[in-house]
């Protein structure tokens, strides 16, 4: 105690404070035990919109946020109601969710699984969000889905295309409306075979991470089943900005199709580079060399400019669809913001509506009740035709669009044209399909 500066007076002071501290709990009003995590008790219910606001996908995140805000307006009975009017389920009244006004908080995922989880946690712990939604990459979606499972809230996935989200990493509290790599392959392969012939030799360039691999495997399996041969599949680093050294070796093979399993900036650069190296003009064995981009995103495709003309790919939804749901959505989004929505905007809008509707039908915000209401739910009128939320893996099964870069765009938004709508049956797979095996939904967790 030689260094201590404790004095009798100091000690008395300390014990007085400690005494007060012990006495304090009597005046505390301890928070009541909730039935489940963040049970909304007041007149409002809070949703957490967790999207990339910084980093390479910030524009897609911004578009998702716009759609979320629109969905909240419509749920609260403001605006023109959008797809609420065309949605086959009529449980939603336009008076919020279960009579509670919908409020929201936003956060930045930075497209990093760490940051996304931190942001989602703050929504759950600080803002009392009862549902988390968003994301624009599979890594982030899977990470946040895992968190929501642990925390006991519902996760409505945004833009995530990897098979794993509803495959080996599926979770009882997580739901995906967006399509996946397997579906891209199943929808795209017949169109490719019909247009380019069934004896093509494909060369794959694949982003070297989980999503890239699942897409490569899916496309390979689907095309090889129709008679294509895979000459080579080369992994490219995610950090690559210039793909010339991966594209030039293509020239030296007898491949006549290049498949770019890239997304975002990687896709823009690899496609631009491929066109620069004259692959579009190349002739192999008397046939035109073709390039395929299995997952198209209109927002990103803009970055590739003219290079996307005539290139085939698949997409979850496109604003040029003319069904009642799509038209209603494009109209209310376009009127509010002045440009048409992207597929990311569409999927998150649908997810918000589907969640709200499930709450209404279940009569509770309890994740277990909501999950039950979503499982096996069949609906229509949200722009993708008849859709089912499969109970086995919480994946939506619906038609998939095969699109082509438009040759004569009339505006800066008019980049893609739908060449075929592949019916849902053709892209449906068994829940135990090897590409999706190894996962376990587990039990729903209400916290």
């Amino acid at each position, binding site marked *: 105690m030689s260094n201590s500066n404790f004095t009798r007076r100091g000690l008395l002071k300390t014990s007085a404070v400690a005494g007060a501290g012990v006495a304090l709990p009597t*005046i*505390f*009003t301890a928070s009541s035990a909730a039935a489940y995590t963040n049970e909304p008790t007041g007149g409002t219910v809070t949703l957490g919109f967790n999207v990339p606001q910084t980093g390479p996908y910030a524009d897609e995140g911004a578009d998702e946020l716009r759609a979320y805000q629109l969905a909240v307006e419509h749920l609260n009975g403001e605006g023109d109601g959008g797809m609420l009017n065309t949605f086959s389920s009529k449980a939603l009244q336009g008076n919020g969710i279960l009579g509670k006004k919908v409020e929201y908080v936003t956060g930045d995922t930075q497209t990093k699984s760490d940051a996304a989880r*931190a942001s989602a946690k703050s929504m759950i712990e600080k803002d009392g969000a009862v549902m988390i939604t968003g994301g624009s990459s599979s890594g982030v979606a899977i990470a946040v889905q895992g968190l929501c*499972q642990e925390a006991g809230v519902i996760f409505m996935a945004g833009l995530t295309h990897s098979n794993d989200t509803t495959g080996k990493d599926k979770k009882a509290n997580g739901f995906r409306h967006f399509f996946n790599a397997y579906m891209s392959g199943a929808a795209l392969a017949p169109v490719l075979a019909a247009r380019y012939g069934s004896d093509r030799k494909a060369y794959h360039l694949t982003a070297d991470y989980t999503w890239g691999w699942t897409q490569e495997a899916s496309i390979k399996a689907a095309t090889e089943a129709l008679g294509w041969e895979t000459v080579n599949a080369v992994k490219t680093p995610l950090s690559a900005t210039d793909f010339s050294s991966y594209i030039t070796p293509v020239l030296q093979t007898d491949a006549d199709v290049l498949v770019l399993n890239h997304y975002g900036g990687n896709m823009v650069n690899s496609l631009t580079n491929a066109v620069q190296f004259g692959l579009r003009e190349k002739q192999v064995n008397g046939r035109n060399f073709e390039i395929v981009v299995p997952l198209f995103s209109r927002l990103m495709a803009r970055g590739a400019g003219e290079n996307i003309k005539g290139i085939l790919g698949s997409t979850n939804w496109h604003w040029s669809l003319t069904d009642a749901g799509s038209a209603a959505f494009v109209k209310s989004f376009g009127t509010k913001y002045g440009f048409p929505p992207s597929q990311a905007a569409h999927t998150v809008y649908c997810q918000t509506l589907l969640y709200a509707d499930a709450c209404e039908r279940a009569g509770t915000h309890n994740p277990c009740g909501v999950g039950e209401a979503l499982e096996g739910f069949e609906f229509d009128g949200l722009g993708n035709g008849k859709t089912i939320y499969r109970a086995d893996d919480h994946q939506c099964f619906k038609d998939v669009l095969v699109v082509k870069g438009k040759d004569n765009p009339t505006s800066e938004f008019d980049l893609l044209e739908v060449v075929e709508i592949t019916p849902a049956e053709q892209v449906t797979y068994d829940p135990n399909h090897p590409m999706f095996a190894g996962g376990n939904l587990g039990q729903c*967790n209400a916290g």
Partner: protein
Amino acid sequence: MLGLDKKDMKFLLIVTFLTLATPILLQPFPEGSGLAQFNAGYPDLMQRFAIFGIFAIGFNILFGLTGYLSFGHAAFLGVGSYSAVWMFKLLSMNVLPGLVLAVIMSGLFALVIGYVSLRRSGIYFSILTLAFAQMSYNLAYSVLTPITNGETGLQVTLNDPRILGQQVSASGNVPGTHFFGIEMGAAQKIAIGSWEFTFSAGYYFCAIIAIIAFYLSLRIFRSPFGLMLRAIKSNQQRLNYTGLNARPYTLAAFVISGMYAGLAGGLLASMDPLAGAERMQWTASGEVVLMTILGGVGTMMGPVLGAGVIKYMENIFSKINDQVLHQWFGWLPDSLESIVIWAAEHFVGSGWHMTSGVLFMIVVIFLPGGLVEGGQRIKSYFKNRRGGDSDDPEHHPKQAPHVAE
């Protein structure tokens, strides 16, 4: 007491008090008020403050004392996280084995990387550490996916063996991390009036470790070993002439700070059982450098302060969206409101990076010693006004000037 002199003891007690009272101090605004947005007293962020505080304290042992600027410290953070999550997968959800393995593994990594990198000094050393960390990141993201689970990050699943612990919790989920039965996720919410405070077990676990880490670093700063490290910083050549070999000392400092980083990584995984490769990216290494410089290089409190400020901006500013802005500025006339919101949008929500960039510039331009110097200036300003003489320069040692600038 505890081998510290009176001043240091007082300092440690203040730090301990501040750390333990954090859940109250960071929740200054009542719930439901417009300023509640700025409250930071929720478990996840408080845990991050403590954990990144540890990371920065450790980094400061290397950079603050020896002057060696490592640009690859995030690699050790990542190694720590991966080790801890693997322990949760294989052994049990008890955090202790995870933390122990995290510290050991990161120490080993630091030994190897340090041994190689410390053969060079100055910017050559920085680039060597950067190169090692970037290689770890790139490989963890791609080729090493079987070990790291790549892009998705390593997570605990229901199928993991967990030979010593529970494989599946009673409710059919992955069990939570715990410390001999104390659940890290457990929290008690206590409302006083319209204030609500959250006391979380996880935070107090981190906080106690952070205090211990702080105490150890204080001891290192005051020890003969610390003095030797400072000698290396001020003039390595002269040290060599006296017949002393500096490298074992710098290597020891490198390994210690690597272990601190590993501990921080292990704690991150203990609070939230996920290890993502981005933790090793150069931006993450850069972040701890920024934390340390922002707070004040070579000071005890600076790095912790810097870590707090950066994490606060990342988590609080990014959540201010235009809905919130409209609530705040709704009382202004429409035209003025839109101008104010237009200006504010650059700095909050998706523009939060801008705020951090501007802050870095302002701090380094006006407060060359970092935030700690700002605190000192305010303190001395009040002292001078009261006419009291200033004491206690020891606790915030001025940064030793770099040699041969």
